[in-house]
Structure formats: C-alpha cells, structure tokens
C-alpha cells in the first residue's frame, strides 16, 4: 500500500509520453525468457530468448503475427501457460521476486491483485450464467476481502468508471444482454477491481468494431492515467498502438526483432519485418500495390537457422541464413536485430510504399505544426 502512495505522489502520475517515461524504473524485468510446448509432433519453441523491461507508468506494446509468441510471453508472466507448456530458461523479475520460481499458490497473491489481464474475446471471458454485478463483486470479495455490501458499492463505482450507463439496472443483467463493447468494459472493470499495478491487454479490441474500438482504447488510456497503471498491450494491428504505446516491441518467431519508442518504430523502422508489417496494410492514402510478406510464419518445432525471418525476407543477406543477428543499437531506446545494420552490410532502403507514407506523415506533421 505504501508503495502505491509513493507512485501516486511522485511524478510518475504525470508522465504521458515516451520522453518522460524513460526515467521510470522497471517494474517487470524479463530476461532470456524461453518457453517451450510439448506437442505431439515435437517440442515447439514458442519464445526463444526474450528480453524487455516494463517501466512504471508506461504502455509497452508487443506487436506481431499470430504464433509469434506475444501471448505466450504474457501468459508466462502470469503463470497461466497451458499444461504442456513450460519455461525452459530465463527470469521474470517483479518486485524483487523471480516469477519463474513461483508456485501456483504464490501466483494467487499476484493475479488480479497486482497484475490483471484483459482478454481478447469478452464473451468467453465472462461467465454466461452469472449476473454481471456478481462477477465484478466476486473479484472484489476474493481480492480485497470486502463484505457483500461494500463490494456492491465498489462494483457500481467501477461500472460507472468504465462508462456503463444505468449501472444499477445493468448490475442485475447477464452477459448476453450486453453488446460487445459493453462486455469489454465489464472485463476491464473486473480487471481493475483489485487496483492492480499492471494491466496486460491481450488484443482487447480485435473482436470489436472501429467505432467501439476507438472508445475502448480511450477508456484504457483514461484508466491508465487515473490509476497510474503500467500496461502491456498485445496486438497485431500497428494502427491501434500508434496512440497508445510509449514503447513498442516487434516480435517474430519467438524473438523481439525490434524495440523502440513509438516514434522510432513508426518513423524510423529499421528491421525488414517491421517494414513489412507497416507496409502490408493500406492506410487512407495508399494507392500503390501492397507490400505483402510471402509465405507463412515458420514452424517453431524446427525454427529456421539464422534469422527466422530470412526465408520470407527479400532483403535477406547470405549471413542471415547462417547466423542469428545480434541487437544493433540505433539510439538509447532503439534496438533492432538485423544484419542490415552491420557496418559491412550493403545499404538497403525500406520499401517505397513505406518511405512514401513516412514522408507523407512528416509533411502533414510539419503543416500542422505551422
């Protein structure tokens, strides 16, 4: 409790953008994390050596295709890996403890209370035969040992805080009576019930419409500001994180291939996979042929030798097929794992469609600045 007060009174409560956030101390430190799954066909190497810090008060986005290991990473943090999955190596430091060594009973102190999770599909995250109000109260009673009356008052407050109109009526209703957006608000309310420090959002808006998506993203941003949350935001849609993220990790085949502040990733992307992700979707001014990544993500039972992306990468160098690239430092906050950044590598430009778009964005930015 004392810790929370410190945070609230300190300057962390005020920081919004990447420049301030860099000074925040790490709240979760993940080092050399490797997660494997035992499958029928062999061992799936889902996460292969991931390193990142989540700093206090920041939103860290993890972006990648399905199967890149982004969800598995956060599941490892919360100790909710499926039965056939295990952490092979690495440490996850939170509050001085290594979560990798935690027993199931230790996680009870953590899940929902310190670290909460918002799932992708709000319908399957809620119990269909339990009233909405009861579901929020359940979280409050379990985590905060409240009485029923206290819990009901707090639950109604939470429902109002996440923007549910007529909370008293809605309290008595069931999930099927809620629309998708409203359901996701309830899931967020439950996640916030025990005042966690960290919120992990696993594709929270993928199942929602554009207009609803915008509202939910706003809500998450508001909650972050009000409650000094640190957020890990998982998504495959780079557009979604542009206004959410302070820092972005791009994951591919179980590794982080590029890490940087939002501005660095969007305006100065360096890894061919980030280029491909950014230019594979049209924006409103795109006229050119889209830059599609050929093929599909690799089979992680037999991860390819060298850079896992090299097979699909038209900029791949010979060394990419033999040796895994190390991280090259572009700035204090910007790292990318690609041999293209090696001093001896040939100079390669990003795809034209992306260069044009960044040019356009910079021009628009200047115009607005004037």
């Amino acid at each position, binding site marked *: 409790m004392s810790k929370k007060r410190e945070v609230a009174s300190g300057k962390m409560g005020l920081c919004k953008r990447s420049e301030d956030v860099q000074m925040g101390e790490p709240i979760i430190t993940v080092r050399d994390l490797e997660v494997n799954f035992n499958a029928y066909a062999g061992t799936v190497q889902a996460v292969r050596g991931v390193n990142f810090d989540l700093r206090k008060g920041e939103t860290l986005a993890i972006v990648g*295709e*399905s199967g890149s290991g982004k969800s598995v990473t956060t599941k490892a943090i919360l100790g909710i890996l499926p039965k056939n999955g295990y952490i092979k190596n690495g440490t996850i430091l939170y509050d001085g403890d290594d979560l990798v060594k935690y027993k199931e009973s230790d996680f009870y102190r953590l899940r929902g209370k310190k670290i909460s999770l918002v799932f992708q599909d709000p319908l399957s995250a809620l119990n269909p035969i339990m009233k909405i109000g009861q579901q929020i109260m359940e979280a409050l009673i379990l985590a905060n040992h409240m009485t029923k009356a206290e819990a009901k008052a707090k639950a109604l407050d939470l429902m109002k805080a996440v923007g549910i109109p007529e909370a008293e009526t809605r309290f008595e209703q069931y999930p099927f009576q809620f629309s*998708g957006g409203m359901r996701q608000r309830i899931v967020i309310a439950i996640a916030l019930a025990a005042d966690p420090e960290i919120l992990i959002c696993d594709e929270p808006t993928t199942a929602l*419409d*554009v*207009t*609803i*998506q*915008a*509202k939910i*993203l*706003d809500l998450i941003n508001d909650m972050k500001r009000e409650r000094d949350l640190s957020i890990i935001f998982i998504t*495959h*849609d*780079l*557009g*979604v994180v*542009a*206004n959410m993220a302070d820092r972005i990790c791009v994951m591919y085949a179980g590794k982080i291939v590029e890490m940087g502040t*939002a*501005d660095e990733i*969007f*305006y100065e992307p360096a890894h061919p996979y980030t280029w*491909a*992700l*950014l230019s*594979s*979707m*049209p*924006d*409103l001014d*795109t*006229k050119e*042929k*889209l*830059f*599609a*990544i*050929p093929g*599909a993500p690799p089979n992680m039972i037999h991860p390819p030798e060298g850079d896992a992306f090299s097979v699909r990468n038209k900029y791949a160098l010979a060394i990419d097929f033999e040796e895994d690239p190390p991280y090259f430092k572009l700035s204090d906050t910007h790292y990318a794992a690609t041999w293209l950044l090696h001093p001896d590598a040939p100079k390669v430009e990003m795809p034209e469609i992306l260069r044009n*778009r960044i040019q356009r*964005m910079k021009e*628009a*930015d200047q115009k*607005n600045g004037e």
Partner: protein
Amino acid sequence: MENKEKNVQVAIEKAEENKDDVVLEVKNLVMHFKSKKRGRTHLVKAVDNVSFSIKRGETFGLVGESGCGKTTTGRTIIRLYNPTGGEVYFNGVPLHGKMTKDLRKFITSNIAMIFQDPIASLNPRMTVQEIIGEGLKIRGMKSFDERHEVVVDMLKRVGLMEEHATRYPHEFSGGQRQRIGIARALVTNPKMIIADEPVSALDVSVQAQVINLLNDLKEEFGLTILFIAHNLSVVKYFSDKIGVMYYGKLVEMASCDELFKYPLHPYTKALLSAIPQPDPHAERKRVKISYDPSIHHYDDGENAPHYFEVRPGHFVYCSDAEYPGYQAEVSEIQKKLQEKG
C-alpha cells in the same frame, strides 16, 4: 408456372441483347426478420430501403459496424434470403421474383460469393479439387480429367500448387484456405463477386497477400465486385464507390475520393474519425467524433428522410430540413480546399 419460367428466359435473352453498363441494380431492397422474444414478435429491419447500383468492372464497398445489415444485403442479393420487398436486377434480369430453377441457375452462374470465415465455408470432408470442381460438375462438366485441368489452372492463378488439389482444407493455413475460397468462386467464370469480409479473419501479413491477389484477379477477369468490410482503410484501397450503412439504412453513398473529401452524414464522420492510423503524431492529435442518432428527429410526415444528391453522384440520407445544412457544409469544404490550393 411454366409461363413464369419462360418469362425469366425471355428477360435473360433481352438482357444479353442490350448490354447495359449497370451490372447490378438494387432498388429499395427490404429484408425484415421476425424474431420471437418472450412471446412477442419483433420485427428486425436488417435491411431497410437500400438502393444502389454497380457498373461493369466497378468495385462497390459496403461499410458499417457489425449488425448494420451489410452482410444481409449481400446475402439477399444472391437470394440466400427471400427479400421482404424491393427489386434487384442483374444485367436487367430481375432476381427478386419467385425462385424458379432457371432463376437459381442464372444467379449461381453469374454471381459468386467469397465468405469471411475460410474454415467454416469449406467442407472439411471434401478435397480441394472436389470443393473447387463442384460448381463445374453441377454446371455439366462431367469428365473428371476436364475438371481436374480447370481446377489445377485455377489453383495456380490464386497462388497455390497442383499437388494441393488432393489435400483437405485442414491441411492449409488461413490465407491458403481463403485462396481456395476465391478459386471456388472464380472457377465458374462469374460476372460478379460478392466478397463478404474476405480478409477480416486473416493475419496482417496474409491480409496483404489476399488483397493483392483479389486486386490482380479483378483486373484479369474484369470482375464486378461487391466488397463488404468494416475496415475502412481496406475498403478505400480496394473500392471505386462506397456505401455507408447504419442500422439497415444506407446513410451515405459516393465515389471513394468524394466520400473521404466530403463526408457529410454524421455517422460517416464518426466512422472516419475512428480509423486508427499508423502515425503516432497524428494519432495523438486526432479528434474522435461520436455519433448520436437522436439528433435527427425523423418522423413519418414532413420530416421523413430520403435520399438527396448533394453533389453529383454523392447521396445522403436526410430529411428536407437537414438538406440545406449539408449543402452549406459542402460549400464550406470547397472553400477550404480552394484556400489550400
């Protein structure tokens, strides 16, 4: 009965003679569903008085949030539902009348559909060549070798290989399955395709592959496409004309550039303002508009809404009272554009 079937045939022949530029014409299409809730019958107006037309080789994008009736519109056109009212003409042939054998044959041989979910829309017990060749078989191509040849050719065109023909759908990835769905739709040489959210269920990198494929095939086959989607960036990239749907009504319709330059209906504005852009600086400044349908005050009498052509080819659904406001807005935007040069 016989007479009616003859009528269809006569109409088909007539249409072949005078090939009009307009391929599909939808006039006041209405599709209502009855649902029973606690003993009471409710009327769900899934599609309510929707009119639009698509010209040869054109792509018409239908956007709106889930539940707005865009999928129902597509399904009603192809007669997966029987419309409650309104008219649909394909090359001048009415598709809305009584379903006869001839009419069904006419519809299925001219319009094909690509579905959203590539897993649910392919029969798991059929091989790829059976799935793709089924339409050919029904249309009288009885010889297996002949069919096999066409199927293999089609597979290659959508970026798959000959050896894929004997495999089952579960052996493919999502993007590949969607390619099979596209091949199945195109193999009978339809004149028009209804693509219902063809890329929404796919992964980002695979979405681009499928969009590029559809774009190439559009040119190669000279297809007319009704493109249904909720992702406005994709719709803008892909379509010539866009219709915006809201709760069963088509609230605004215009050519692609026109709609993004002069968005007039408040719902269109809200929709446009909600598109996430991969640009952090612009995103931080973005003002999101929310739409409140209660601003309209429509009734059945004088204030009944209908379609107004605000600019050439640009239709807005509004009442007489609202129309001057939209016109003023148009001239204001024009002024701004002129100032910018």
